[in-house]
């Protein structure tokens, strides 16, 4: 199971370093796919109904539907394919490394029961949340904001995994619903900004500032 979690962290790093929007979206799809496998492995029997339902649900949303919509808005908005980071990609990669160190050095203090997952899952979740945040901070385009938000949500989903045995369905469905709502809001934003200003750069929102 470790390779899945490592894969999740690696995909977040690829997103941090990717310079093209399309590869970012592909990576977030891959990350969603990896995540959705996790609940399947949680149960002793592979064909557990609940695990299967969760797999199908999260796979459809995280790995298929959301990337599809993102690609579509990418095509419709006819935006440039570059990521346009605020700080250079190398810097964000180093930041991601720092975040990873922080997450792994501090996870001992979270007394979370992680069974049946390896204890690696807690720092991985923390790192994913923080990397999602880094993506949100360091990118300007609205579409990359959505991607960052998705990574953040994936981290929350990972945290949720540790509670899978205690609060099975409610937590997960809550997470998925939350995600969906978030993406829709962002999607509307993307559409709106695109229509109004002909590009989807969130820095333009600063026209709304209160004092000059």
């Amino acid at each position, binding site marked *: 199971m470790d390779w899945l979690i490592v894969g999740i962290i690696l995909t977040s790093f690829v997103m941090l370093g990717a310079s093209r929007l399309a590869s970012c979206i592909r990576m977030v799809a891959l990350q969603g796919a990896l995540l959705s496998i996790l609940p399947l492995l949680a149960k002793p029997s592979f064909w557990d109904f609940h695990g299967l339902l969760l797999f199908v649900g999260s796979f459809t949303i995280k790995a298929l539907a959301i990337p599809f919509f993102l690609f579509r808005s990418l095509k419709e908005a006819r935006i440039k394919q570059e990521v346009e980071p605020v700080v250079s990609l190398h810097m964000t990669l180093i930041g991601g490394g720092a975040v990873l160190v922080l997450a792994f050095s501090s996870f001992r203090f979270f007394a979370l029961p992680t069974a049946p997952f390896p204890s690696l899952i807690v720092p991985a979740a923390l790192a994913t949340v923080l990397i999602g945040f880094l993506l949100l901070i360091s990118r300007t385009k609205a579409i990359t904001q959505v991607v960052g938000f998705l990574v953040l949500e994936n981290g929350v989903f990972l945290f949720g995994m540790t509670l899978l045995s205690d609060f099975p369905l409610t937590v997960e469905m809550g997470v998925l619903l939350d995600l969906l709502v978030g993406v829709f809001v962002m999607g509307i934003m993307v559409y709106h900004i695109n229509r109004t200003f002909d590009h989807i750069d969130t820095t333009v*929102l600063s026209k709304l500032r209160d004092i000059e």
Partner: protein
Amino acid sequence: MIFLISSFLFLLIGSLLSFLCRCEETKKWMALGGVMVGSVTGLIPAVFVLAGKGPLSSSLPIGLDLLSAFFLIAILFVSLLTALYSWGYLKGEPHMTVYCTFFPLLVGAMEAVVVARDGFLFLICWEVMSLASFFLVTAEHETPKVRHAGWIYLIATHLATAFLMAFFVILFKKAGSFAFDDFVRLSPLSASLSGILFLAALIGFGTKAGIFPFHVWLPHAHPAAPSPISALMSGVMIKTGIYGILRAFTFLGPPPLWWGETLIVAGIFSAVLGVLYALMQHDLKRLLAYHSVENIGIIVIGIGLGFIGRTLHNPILQLLGFTGALFHVWNHAIFKGLLFLGAGSVVHATHTRAIDRLGGLLKKMPVTGTTFLIASAAICGLPPLNGFISEWLIYVGLFRASQSLSQLPLFLSVAGVVGIAFAGGLAIACFTKVFGVVFLGEPRDPTIDGVKESSLSMRVPMGILALLCIGLGLYPQFVLPVLISICQQLDPSLLLTSALNETFSSLSTISIIFVMLLILIASLLIFCRFQLKSKIIRKALTWDCGYALPSSRMQYTAASFGEPIGTFFRVLLKPITSSRADHFEEHVVDLSERSFFAPLFQRANRFLTFVRRQQRNRIQDYLMYIFMTLVILLLWEVWFGI
């Protein structure tokens, strides 16, 4: 307990239903009916507890002991009468929705604050109370002044809540739970910790109570609010601050000497400065608001005296201080409620709060005028009314203190006597001004006409409160046992000594003297009437003074009353005057507003403008702030452990 919970339910349902229904008349019925029924059901258990049936507790984190019941009775009684008064007051008033929704909510929140037995619940109810009263203060939000007052109130009350949060969180960290019972078990705390907690409680609760220099919101918020709400806020809501102080000190263990001393100093400043500023006001309700500061000061002096008594193991000081303070809580609720209701009637009839535009109202509004006069006499501490008794108890306590204490406490008790006496004297001057200008003389402003006496539902509550002023003044023994048992609840080791019984038994002598005084006055009046019956009575203009054609502009005005005192205390008050041959104006700006809060907020504003310039208003920046906070908190929690 079932009564208490159903009382909450009535209040909440009243608030909700009046919010939901459309028709104005139904709204009024729902809200005021809810408050009345809720108050009556809530009063029942409170009266039972005060009658000595033992405290109530339940599985919920609420409970009713003597201290809570004492404040609960004041709160619900004034609410009941205010609801009755509102029936007449709301006729033709706009802003029904705000008023009817938040009035029951405010009453319910105040009730919850005094019965909460859990720090968390307490804070929530405290916030609900503050917010409900904020919406009521800003009910007439069309006026910029009202909005300004609303903001000042909101900021002040939230600063206070911040201190209270610190207070409860520190206690929680120590006790491991938010339950009041666990807090009580904590004592004794270390001296430095309890000192910090004391200051947090004093600032937090003192802001709500209106202790100098944290009173700045009072003179803004009270005039802005609708009059029945001012009565409720000034009469009882600020008393939740006093309740908080008393309740907080049950957690903190035996007080060191400086607590009592601090309280007395704060009390003296509140009392003297409150009344000085009151004298300089031209707005009827603003003046009354400053008198709340004065009376809270007197209450705080009493509490401070009680604490000094407790520290020095002097039961007489303790009892006299606490009983005086607690009794003054009730009395102030009664007469200040009455004064604000009276002011409300005046404002309702004349549509102005400016004292200098009113005049000669006693002839047109006899009931309002008479009850206002009774309340004015009571607030000045004149015998034979209730204000005298509570101030007398504090006076006796302070005199006893000056006999038995030494050094700083001695100085403070003497200063306390002088302070209360000074405040009392100025209060008489102040209410002479108010009553003289507003109710006596001739109408000053010809544009105000068609003034009528207020409706029956407004007169009845004022009458009841006025009767209570007289009743509690003549027969204070009725309340004393209750007050003493509350003191015993505050300090279980308190012993009743013979010297004490002596002091209290002198109260019965006082009431006999009062009754005789009243009989004397009454018989004199009857005698005068009888004498005058046979003679011809010629009615002339007031303030005639030998002029052939006096005009109403020749009368004394509020400014004429205030000017000598303003000149005398000009170092402190710094009055701004503008005078011409035919015109004189004088205004004062509050000391703590002028030299503490205004510079503070100006500096804060300057700094924050600098910060605001720095921001580039990008989503990424804000997200980065969140990110940094998260990481710092994470590091802190992980490496240091909060």
